[in-house]
């Protein structure tokens, strides 16, 4: 009907038209919503599953190493020599009368309850090293522990194995104990605190020294730049591990000493990076404008230059954390890091490596902790770099 009507009159009818809704206003526009650089970085980072996973792992590790140690209720240097080299998983053997025994590989017999909680050690009533046979008495029954070539066997008086064997989690020490009976879980958590603290503080020192040094060198340029950068080049020519070793030999072991030694060696790369960034920025107009209105050089560096090169600095700092963890672990491992009994992951590895055959968990646990932390920080750093790279923008 209306079509006919239109053809006849050639007149537009108001009722055929409607107002455009606000959200439809840009429906045919070819450009999307403009987002700032940092919004884009955040969006890309959020889409990256690896980065998300890394952040979760890092938060868990940080939580565990800050509050974890108070939750275990044990101290990192309390020793219980009778319970040394206890593995995290123990095999308990149950006798017919319901008594639970745990036979330790060092030829010790412990009593446990049915949940795996070690209550007592029982001494042998007679020990014959020639026959490789220990005899025990408990609740009126006799048990034999033989350790001939076929391994350790725990048998009742008729030389028959006990009826029930099962593996159970060590309830006294969830991750076992080390060679002098210290709780490995507490030491691992406290060691994580030490390792991460060193890594973060070294990174902060790297940031402060490197950014200021590079900023000043790049901003003033000319002869000052040449002198400052030659110094960096010479210091960089010395292999950094040797430099740290030398400083540690001079300072002696200790957490503050390793911090200072690492801070003194780690800022060089950051200084070069910041200098390069500042050099490329300082000829731009906004710096000239700031100079013209009389802003002081320090303020120009801090408020105009550095915020504009924050991206590479953040990436470099994130990636320097795993580097610092590895260096600290390495130095502690060769006996030039944190001073025992204070644990760090390197110290724990050092203490565990000797027992790799008899108690492999002592070396595997700190190794896993180090690897996990290094992976998390490295993946986060890589994802940050990808997210901040404008060439990879989609």
């Amino acid at each position, binding site marked *: 009907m209306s079509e006919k009507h239109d053809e006849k009159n050639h007149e537009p009818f108001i009722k055929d038209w409607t107002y455009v809704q606000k959200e439809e206003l840009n429906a045919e526009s070819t450009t999307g919503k403009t987002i700032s650089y940092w919004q884009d970085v955040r969006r890309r980072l959020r889409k990256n599953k690896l980065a998300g996973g890394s952040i979760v792992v890092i938060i868990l590790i940080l939580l565990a190493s800050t509050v974890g140690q108070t939750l275990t209720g044990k101290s990192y240097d309390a020793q219980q020599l009778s319970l040394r080299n206890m593995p995290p998983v123990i095999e308990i053997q149950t006798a017919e009368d319901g008594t639970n025994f745990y036979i330790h590989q060092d030829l010790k017999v412990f009593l446990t309850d049915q949940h795996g909680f070690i209550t007592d050690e029982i001494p042998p009533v007679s020990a014959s090293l020639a026959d490789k046979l220990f005899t025990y008495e408990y609740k009126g029954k006799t048990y034999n522990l033989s350790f001939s070539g076929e391994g350790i066997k725990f048998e009742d008086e008729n030389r028959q194995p006990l009826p029930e064997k099962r593996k159970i989690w060590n309830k006294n020490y969830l991750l076992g104990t080390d060679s002098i009976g210290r709780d490995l879980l507490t030491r691992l958590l406290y060691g994580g605190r030490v390792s991460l603290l060193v890594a973060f503080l070294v990174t902060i020192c790297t940031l402060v020294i490197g950014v200021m040094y590079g900023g000043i060198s790049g901003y003033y340029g000319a002869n000052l730049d040449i002198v400052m950068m030659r110094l960096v080049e010479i210091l960089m020519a*010395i292999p950094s591990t040797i430099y740290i070793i030398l400083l540690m*030999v001079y300072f002696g072991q200790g957490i503050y000493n390793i911090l200072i030694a690492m801070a003194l060696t780690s800022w060089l790369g950051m200084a070069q990076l910041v200098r390069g960034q500042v050099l490329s920025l300082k000829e731009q107009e906004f710096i000239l404008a700031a100079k013209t209105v009389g802003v002081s050089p320090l303020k120009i560096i801090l408020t105009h230059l550095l915020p504009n090169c924050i991206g590479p600095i953040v990436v470099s700092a994130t990636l320097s954390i795993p580097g610092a963890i590895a260096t600290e672990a*390495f130095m502690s491992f060769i006996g030039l890091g944190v001073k025992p009994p204070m644990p760090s992951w390197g110290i724990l590895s050092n203490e565990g490596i000797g027992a790799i*055959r008899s108690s492999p968990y002592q070396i595997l646990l700190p190794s896993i902790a*180090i690897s996990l932390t290094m992976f998390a920080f*490295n993946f986060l750093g890589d994802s940050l770099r990808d997210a901040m790279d404008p060439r990879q923008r989609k």
Partner: protein
Amino acid sequence: MLKYISKRFAMMVITMFIIITATFFLMRAIPGGPFSFDRALPPSVEEALNAKYNLDKPLIEQYFDYLLSILRFDFGPSYVYFGRTVNEMIADGWPDSAKLGIASSILILIFGVPLGIVAALNQNKRPDRAIMVISTIGVVIPSFVLATFLLYFFSVKLEILPTFGVDSWKGYILPTICLAVGPICGITRLSRSSMLDTLSQDYMRTAESKGLSRSRIIVVHGLRNSLIPVVTSLGMTFAALLTGTFVIEKIFAVPGLGRYFVSSITNRDYTAVMALTILSSAIMVVAVFIIDIIYMLLDPRIKLYDK
């Protein structure tokens, strides 16, 4: 070109001079002399010892003596093992370190660059993904952690390789792998990104449009240009491996330079610490010098940048 080389050479000498000076004064500044034991020595014995090791002279004189003796490659007597010189002990330890270093360098050469190029040529395909995942893990994991995992599986669980010692050829397998894995993965990643960078260059397209064969483009035009950053990394790695590594030698009880370094630190054998510091830095600095020259031969543009 000669000017460039002489300039780099001067730089190298200055660096070495600073390293030697810093090492000397740092070691001398450590509280407690080399002969301060738990039990105090009779003064006459201590004087005799100091005179024997020239420690009674003024510090400056000692310093110049030390500089001169280093020029003659004489690192002096050991403070801990009486009657032995540091030179002898270095000569004892170096062969084992060098054997390990050379073996792992060969592994790095065989696997590092080819894997990177395979990954680059198959970018974002399955081989590339696999190589990248493995090499990321290999780069991140510290060598001593890798060593403990390998030791646990091959020596403790499977019991096919010895836990320590280099008495038979089997003893070299694990330390060589531990030393090589990190650098292989690093070189793989580096040569992949470098190759990708080169592949996107204009001259590669030119070479293709000239009708050159694909293998010729990749080997002659691609490889040569992409190897420049790889050479630096390779050179530094070889230099570092040659002087022994502290942790791997300690874990596997290899009687090499690295373990000697660590033990001389714990024994406070200062002449040995100084000698090994200077030796390893010297090898590093000379390596950088040689790399610079190779760099110049590989990339003629570098000369132009030099004023």
